[in-house]
């Protein structure tokens, strides 16, 4: 009984942690994608362009 209760508690903690971390990572990715704008705009310092 005690072992089963501990297992449920461990699963609960994992479930909470995974959900919050997953949401946090997606929000961070969104900010990373927005931040890429600074790099795209910095390309304007190349006078002519061309690769």
């Amino acid at each position, binding site marked *: 009984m005690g072992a089963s209760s501990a*297992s*449920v*508690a461990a*699963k*609960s*903690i*994992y*479930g*909470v*942690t*995974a*959900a*919050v*971390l*997953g*949401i*946090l*990572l*997606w*929000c*961070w*990715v*969104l*900010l*990373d*994608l*927005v*931040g*890429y*704008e*600074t*790099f*795209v*705009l*910095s*390309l*304007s*310092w*190349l*006078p*002519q*362009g*061309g*690769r």
Partner: protein
Amino acid sequence: MASFLHHMRAMVGGRWLGWGMVVALGCASVAALWLLAAVALGRSRRKPLVATTASSALTVALCGIRVELEYGEATRLLLGEVRAPDPSERARLTSESVSRLINTLVFPPLPLIAIALLVAFSLLWRRDRTWPHCVGAVAALLVATTAWSVLRAQGAFFTGFGCGQECLYDVLLQSRTDLHLGKLYLGAAAALGWVWLLVVARRLGDWGRRSILVASSLLLLTGLIATVAARGRYYDTWHLVPFDASPMPCMVRSDRLESLPVASPHCQGIDAPMFEVWPDGAFIDGTPMATPEDVRVKLDEKRKLWLMLNPGREFAGHVVLVAPQRASVSELSSWVTAAHAAGYEKVGLYSRAPELQLHTATLGVIREPRCCVAPLVLGDTLATPLIQR
């Protein structure tokens, strides 16, 4: 109100995707009002909550697609991969693309912050604290924090509106710093939400259910994959193109670059008038010069104009000769003499410097041609073949 409409018009940019974003944002706003009414009147919040969440998610998805498309378009334009009729046309297209990009990033977060806060409130206000409600509230608060961070970072572009290149550099750094701070705020908010959920979860006791564990694991796994996939962009964000990446741009037609002489390692750029001598004729500012006398007259006009615009300053007498490497001294001497006669004692030779190479994570190696001016002593030019056939 005028500013609001201006930003919305700039965001739409006359494209169907822009109108789609406006419609989605309108739907999200209407659904949010419906949700607000349901909370105020004590009615069921389920349907308005689903409608608000779905329309907000659609808005974010459409914004993401728009931003991706604009990144691609602006990058192609800035790297010269788009064949535009002339440079001014390319500059116009670039500024329009950047305007759509910035306004797409600055406009939707405004209502999304309010909508996300309303969703979090309606999930918790006088309701049973079940796990979907709690996770939904934490997610909504994190979305609101993300939208606020985006808005804050984009605000830097509006404070620096209309400023020059050096100012743009400061604006970019400020925007990047704000986004980095936003990630720290998000981390702190998520940590608080995590602790709160752990406390609530002890009471709920249903977090160990298989369906929840699968859903949480999937969220974490996709989040990790997205983080890894965005690493290249994150790297480039922290390795901007250097402000002085190319202090020596090449001012000749790209098909003539290869025929320029190769520069010595100590070659430098100077600010001086240029005259070109090619097998198909001589040119100044793209205007054909029939004879050396035309060159002399034109350069003389430039010298007088410079003296008029810079009273009291000493005329340096620099002029740059642009000619192919294969040109002989005898072919050039009459033109160089004309420049000398117009008051330009110091004739430099336009040369190809080693190209600039920028290593990026998302665009590969960007190669930028560079040109500079090598010294060319007039007396020596007439006597010795400095430019070898």
